């Protein structure tokens, strides 16, 4: 194939390649090391400028030198050349260097393939519709670059050809997208950083952990309720339960898991479909308290729902919750012991307060109530930017700084309860949720991340206590924005005064949700249910294969028809004449290449004297239709019927 190409490149394809490389690199720039982005941009700009007059190859020594230097820097920056980030950086570097040494058509082809890989690399971080459109534009430019190796048209007509190709490719893409069997990944071990940068709750909690998370307006999950959504006071979404405490950090206590949660359901039920964003942890968020029936899930003894694998991609599941149930009535002694343990000799002032409460009130229930009352009167401030706490975190928060976020409240309260002899633990999750008016789904964001407490009371089980609500009651009803003073550093979109912006966001996120459900969420499960609705047995690979073959085959047939039609325009007169020729050829008088209609007719008439008149009449009529100045004056239908009737 190299024979088909020009030996050296002109400036024209190089300019196309530069546009393609720029469009591919641009969205990567924020994620690349600054020096690498600068290097790649410099190379592109320098060569693009130097090519305006005549293409000049870069000096030979330059690209290997740059490759070694930059490769070393990448190794230094990431510690590896493999893995997601380092791989993309390496590809970006290769793209720049390839452009530097672009001299032959083959270099442009390699460059375009590199661009395809880099466009795929964009999807690791985000798969938003915008990025998708960007990739589509990149693909059009790449097509234009390949085209420019063979034709030099003005940009617009080049883009038109590229778009025609794209439009023809789209149906094939759709068929393959829907019918190509989706194999659940991963196929091999993933690099360590494959799913880094996913926000969400952590399996441990220390002061500052959740307030940091609250800065993010990202969506944590969406819930589509079958009936009316629960009132704000019941919108507690259960995440990891933290029982173990070392004085600073709260961590999960490993418990046994069961197929069903161990509690008797009571009260009203809420049925909903969850769309949980990837957070790279095993737990599945669910409204307190989740009932059995979540597919592929198990239930920890602390009522956390656990998936089989870490949630590495957005997943959907159907869940039911009974917020009015009582849980943990018959809690095992061991787990209650765990819910009472405190590091020795920590938080003396909190312990003293606990002793005081215990002395004044006899039953645990009263102690809890008294503690909440104490918190309410302690003049604690709810803020996103709490000051740093010392070693005795509960003491420092309750008695010194008196400023904290929900994790401070929950942590200090649980310490107080344990000191007072009441089993207690921290529950993290999300509290709240907004209804998107466009699709009525409840959207819960990272800024809704929350921590609360559960205390165990004999005869009742675990009871939820939200110490934050004691000091900032509006947090529960009105969300984060309502509870915080105006001057605090709220995420832009959580601020109440920017309602128009929020409407816009709601609209955008409604679209985003549809995109997520139908494009990004199209996995093996969705594929199966869709195909089953179309009447295909997805377990039978022959049926799937046949469906794909039929789909692709009919598209190919359509393309072939298109190619034929464009190649030989339909000319009814020509076709009629050819039919006449074929009839005569069967009779033994094929038309010779140099014969015109009159000569041919004369020869044929001599050959078949019986039909001489008909042959001459047809040829005469054809010649007049073909060559006369005003063919519309002649009846072409007569000729067609004559030819039809003609037989030897």
């Amino acid at each position, binding site marked *: *194939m*190299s*024979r*088909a*190409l020009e030996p050296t490149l002109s400036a024209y394809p190089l300019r196309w390649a530069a546009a393609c490389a720029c469009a591919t690199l641009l969205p990567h720039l924020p994620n690349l090391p600054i020096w690498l982005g600068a290097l790649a941009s410099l190379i592109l700009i320098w060569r693009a400028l130097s090519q305006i007059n005549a293409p000049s190859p870069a000096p030979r020594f330059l690209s290997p030198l740059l490759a070694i230097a930059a490769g070393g820097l990448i190794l230094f920056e990431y510690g590896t050349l493999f893995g997601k980030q380092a791989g993309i950086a390496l590809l970006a570097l290769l793209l720049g260097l390839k452009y530097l040494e672009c001299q032959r058509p*083959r270099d442009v*082809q390699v460059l375009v*393939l590199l661009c*395809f*890989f880099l466009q*795929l690399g964009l*999807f690791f971080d985000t*798969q938003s519709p915008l*990025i*998708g459109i960007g*990739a*589509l534009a990149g*693909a059009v430019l790449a*097509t234009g670059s*390949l*085209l420019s*190796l*063979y*034709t030099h048209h003005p940009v617009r007509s080049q883009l038109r050809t590229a778009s025609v*190709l*794209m439009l*023809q*490719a*789209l*149906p*094939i*893409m759709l068929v*393959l*997208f829907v019918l*190509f069997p*989706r194999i*659940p*990944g*991963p*196929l*091999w071990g*993933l690099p360590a950083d*494959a799913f880094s940068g996913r926000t969400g709750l952590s399996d441990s909690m220390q002061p500052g952990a959740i307030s940091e998370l609250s800065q993010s307006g990202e969506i944590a999950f969406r819930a589509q309720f079958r009936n009316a959504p629960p009132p704000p006071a019941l919108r507690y979404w259960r995440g990891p339960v933290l029982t173990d405490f070392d004085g600073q950090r709260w961590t999960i206590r490993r418990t046994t898991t069961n197929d069903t949660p161990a509690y008797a359901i009571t009260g009203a039920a809420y049925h909903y479909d969850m769309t949980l964003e990837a957070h790279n942890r095993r737990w599945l968020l669910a409204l307190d308290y989740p009932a059995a029936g979540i597919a592929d899930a198990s239930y920890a003894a602390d009522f956390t729902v656990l998936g089989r694998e870490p949630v590495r*991609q957005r997943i959907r599941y159907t869940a039911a919750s009974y917020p009015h149930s009582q849980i943990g009535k018959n809690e095992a002694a061991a787990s209650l012991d765990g819910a009472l343990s405190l590091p020795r000799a920590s938080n003396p002032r909190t312990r003293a307060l606990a002793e005081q409460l215990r002395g004044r009130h006899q039953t645990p229930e009263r102690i809890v109530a008294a503690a909440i009352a104490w918190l309410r009167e302690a003049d604690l401030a709810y803020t996103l930017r709490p000051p740093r706490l010392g070693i005795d975190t509960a003491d420092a928060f309750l008695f010194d700084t008196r400023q904290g976020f929900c994790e401070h409240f929950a942590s200090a309260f649980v310490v107080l309860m344990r000191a007072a002899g009441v089993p207690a633990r921290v529950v993290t999750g999300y509290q709240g949720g907004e209804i998107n008016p466009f699709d009525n789904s409840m959207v819960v964001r990272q800024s809704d991340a929350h921590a609360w407490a559960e205390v165990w009371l004999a005869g009742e089980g675990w009871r939820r206590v939200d110490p934050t609500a004691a000091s900032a009651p509006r947090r529960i009803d009105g969300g984060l924005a309502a509870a915080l003073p105006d001057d605090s550093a709220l995420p832009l979109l959580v601020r109440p005064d920017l309602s128009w912006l929020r409407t816009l966001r709601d609209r955008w996120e409604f679209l985003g949700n549809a995109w997520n459900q139908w*494009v*990004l*969420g*199209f*996995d093996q499960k969705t594929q199966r249910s869709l195909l089953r609705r179309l009447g295909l047995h997805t377990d039978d690979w022959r049926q799937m294969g046949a469906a794909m073959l039929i789909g692709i085959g009919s598209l*190919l047939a359509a*393309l*072939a028809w*298109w*190619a*034929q039609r*464009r*190649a*030989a*325009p339909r000319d009814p007169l020509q076709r009629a004449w050819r039919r006449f020729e074929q009839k005569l050829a069967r009779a033994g008088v094929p038309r010779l*290449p140099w014969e015109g209609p009159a000569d041919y007719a004369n020869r044929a008439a001599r050959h078949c004297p019986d039909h001489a008149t008909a042959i001459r009449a047809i040829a005469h009529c054809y010649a007049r239709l073909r060559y006369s100045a005003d063919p519309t004056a002649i009846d072409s239908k007569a000729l067609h019927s004559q030819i039809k009737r003609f037989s030897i």
Partner: protein
Amino acid sequence: MSALTAPRRLWSRLRQVIDRRLFRIRPAEALPIRLPQRRIFILPTRAGLVFGLTLFAMLLASINYTLSLGFALTFLLAGLGIASIFHAFRTLLELEIKAGAAPPVHCGEPAIFGLNIGHHGKTPREAIYIRTAHATARVDLPPDSHATVTLSAPTTRRGWQPVGSVVIDTVFPLGLIRAWSVLTPDLKVLVYPALESRPPPPPAGTGLSGQAYTASGDDEFAGLRAHRPTDSPRQIAWKAVARSGTLVSKHFQGGAGGPQVFDWHQLPPALAEETRLQRLARWMVDAAQNDVRWTLILPGVQLGPDRGAQHRHQCLRSLALFNQPDHVPRA
């Protein structure tokens, strides 16, 4: 020895069958040739294979990282590759190849084969390459148009030189797919013998009339006759044309000079056949240059006496095909 040649013979038989059945190469096809669908072959180029491998890698990455958009991009590019098959196919479909000029040359000069490529489609056909064993030409055809390409080939021996196999191919639009068609058009160039570079002077006295060799061509005017296309413009009797309105030529009768005679039999007997032909060719070309009449005598053939381009061609043709089988050898 036969054990060695038998497989080779079998292979050449097989090649012939493959050529005829698969590539539909026939001895030589009369022009014009129209490229129907079944004569166009399609295979991926090396770039196309690399593109396929890239797509496979992208597919694996999409599966591994569950990238839905990755699937979409991979499938879109696959669709692009598939669509480009039809673009390449369409570029060649229903192309019409007609014979162009193929003027005779002397051995050693490059033979020039003209081919006229055209189509009646509504879309342009671009980046079409026409290749022979020795030359490559490119044509870009606007809608419903045709263009002539010339392909040169070296000449090493006199006689008919066929153009041989002509490959028409394109990798348009993306360079991933190559569509091609192989033809053996019935297009040939007559290769005259080379001209001997330093020949001895032609025989001074001719065998027939014993006249001296004159290069001036001062024959006597013998009257007017109807114009023949091969007559030189100098021969046209312009005055007579002005009077009668039809083209007439002056007719000369060999006078004192008489026709020159180039006789194969009078050349030195030791001279090799090719050298004889080259010498005769040189003498004749010189004679034609000087516009004199000459006669060519070859074993069993006598041409002339006559003059002019037609006679020159007839004689050179006899020299070119002297002692050669009638049929055109296959390239």
